[in-house]
């Protein structure tokens, strides 16, 4: 029963079996590839292509008038990748990951696939855990792919500009990868959570995007006027994500040298703990609701 050719594959745990099943259907889902491709394209455009054009033409980059060309070039160097690579993650990348999570869980209610998978026997918790495990694998792959793409872009630019290639510090790289995984992981879990609560991919994506792209920013804006509100806005998911990216040196938008969503409100430690906390809460609540709910 335990040989490699065993057709029952009974050596697998229910959770592993479910995760393999979910990975197969996510891997073959064009929507997943479209979202990953859009994110990588956005990352490449905003972190390298536009900055490089700005550097070559001598004009200021978007939102960054007056940035000296040398600073632009330094941001595009290989050793700057750990600092730069999370810049697009708190808001735009996070929004895409939220859509991924929301579609992955919300669609199953309309298609009736949650019902079908619940009838296969691993148990509801394992079934949903498999989905979360597969999403985690997608997030980890996207974070690594983003890092590799940024390194490649930096090396191409260094080659074209005749600059020496300075490799990023391994510790910084590991920190940046961890931060990226935490930011994307939290937003993906948030999407999965909203998808389960609304049972509708459209509603989940809509509400999730309104929250992450509009409501949080509006609240942070109002918090300057309403005393006391900043205690709330300082601990919102987007604040934590933006602060972690900011703490790595991605730069605050206010500095004129960073992407929207990157903040310097919290330090790295509290931001990371807060992100992990949100991730755990989203995962636990979504799992509990999906396991206990009547599937009609």
């Amino acid at each position, binding site marked *: 029963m335990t040989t490699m050719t*065993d*057709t*029952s*594959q*009974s050596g*697998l745990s*229910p959770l592993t*079996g*479910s995760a*393999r*099943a*979910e990975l*197969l*259907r996510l891997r*073959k*889902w*064009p*929507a997943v590839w479209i979202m990953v491709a859009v994110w990588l394209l956005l990352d490449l455009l905003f972190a390298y292509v536009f900055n490089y054009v700005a550097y070559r033409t001598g004009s200021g980059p978007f939102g960054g008038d007056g940035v000296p060309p040398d600073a632009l070039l330094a941001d595009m160097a290989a050793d700057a990748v750990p600092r730069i690579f999370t810049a697009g993650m708190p808001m735009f990348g996070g929004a895409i990951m939220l859509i991924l999570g929301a579609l992955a869980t919300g669609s199953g209610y309309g*298609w*009736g*696939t*949650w*019902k*079908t*998978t*619940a*009838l*296969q*026997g*691993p*148990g509801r918790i*394992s*079934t949903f855990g*498999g989905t979360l495990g597969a999403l985690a694998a997608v997030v980890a792959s996207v974070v690594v792919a983003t890092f590799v793409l940024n390194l490649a872009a930096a090396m191409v630019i260094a080659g074209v500009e005749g600059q020496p290639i300075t490799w990023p510090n391994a510790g910084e790289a590991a920190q940046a990868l961890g931060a990226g995984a935490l930011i994307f992981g939290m937003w993906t879990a948030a999407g999965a959570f909203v998808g389960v609560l609304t049972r509708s991919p459209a509603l989940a994506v809509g509400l999730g995007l309104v929250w992450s792209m509009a409501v949080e920013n509006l609240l942070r804006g109002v918090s300057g006027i309403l005393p006391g509100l900043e205690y709330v806005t300082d601990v919102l998911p987007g604040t934590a994500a933006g602060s972690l990216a900011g703490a790595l040196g991605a730069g605050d938008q206010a500095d004129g040298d960073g992407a929207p969503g990157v903040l310097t409100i919290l330090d790295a430690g509290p931001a990371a703990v807060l992100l992990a906390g949100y991730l755990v809460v989203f995962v636990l609540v979504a799992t509990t609701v999906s396991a206990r709910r*009547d*599937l*009609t």
Partner: protein
Amino acid sequence: MTAAAASLWDMTTTIVTTDRLTKRYGDHVAVDDVSLTVRPGEVYGFLGPNGAGKTTTLRMLLGLIRPSGGTATVLGHPPGAPAAVAEVGALIEGPGFYPYLSGRDNLRVMARYRRLGDETVDTALTRVDLHDRGDDAFSTYSLGMKQRLGVACALLGDPELLILDEPTNGLDPAGMADMRALIVALAGQGQSVMLSSHMLSEVEEICDRVGVISGGRLIAESTVSDIRGASTLYVRAEPADVALAVAMQVGGDDAARVLDDNGVRIELDAGSAPQVVRALVQAGADVYEVRTSERSLEEVFFEITAESIAGTTQGVSR
């Protein structure tokens, strides 16, 4: 209960047992005190009109929804327990699959959930005659093909019990005949099948026992022949009032009933036909037709549902 004990339990008693199973949605009682049993190796037909509570009952048996009251046992386990669900193949209220995946990939996903190898997928596709279209996207399937894929999914891993909710829904007549043949073949292999249907002829054709549900209540549970009752005599003679009088005289006052076409049904077996004809002739009636007739399940169904609605649920064979 150990696996061996559970298995022994299954073999000696029943595959599915429910005891006063009930599901309420607010004030509405969708399933009301349903107590039924499915025995090993039989095809059990769950019969009732749309909205009678068939699907809700099946959902409770599979753990998709929680009962509001009562208990159920499936293969010796509580409903929805992984050990029970793993040995049940089910299709509930239409097939739910990933539209962007092919039929084959959809089954591969479900096989992985069941921790089975991919070769079970091909076997299942072949059994429902979808092998050639297995690589087409599910979203391009016709209603009947989707339904067949749902049944193929239920067959993955040769489960001990199949629970099929309206399995012939959306199939053309040839597809329906194939599906019924498949179900009979599965039962022949020793698999137990519980199927719901609103099609009386279908249940009549393939089921060993039936449970009739109406308005959420199980109003009869027995073999098809028991529910249908013994064969009767059908007599058409003129004048009709004389024919009825003779029928009542021979069979008893409660045994004769005038049908819509002025024929008379008498609760007597075929051996009484000569006596009835003789009596009719002696009474001066012209006899046009005499034959034995079995009530169709359809007639029985309307009779007992009408009785149930009238609040006279007693006296129906159980």
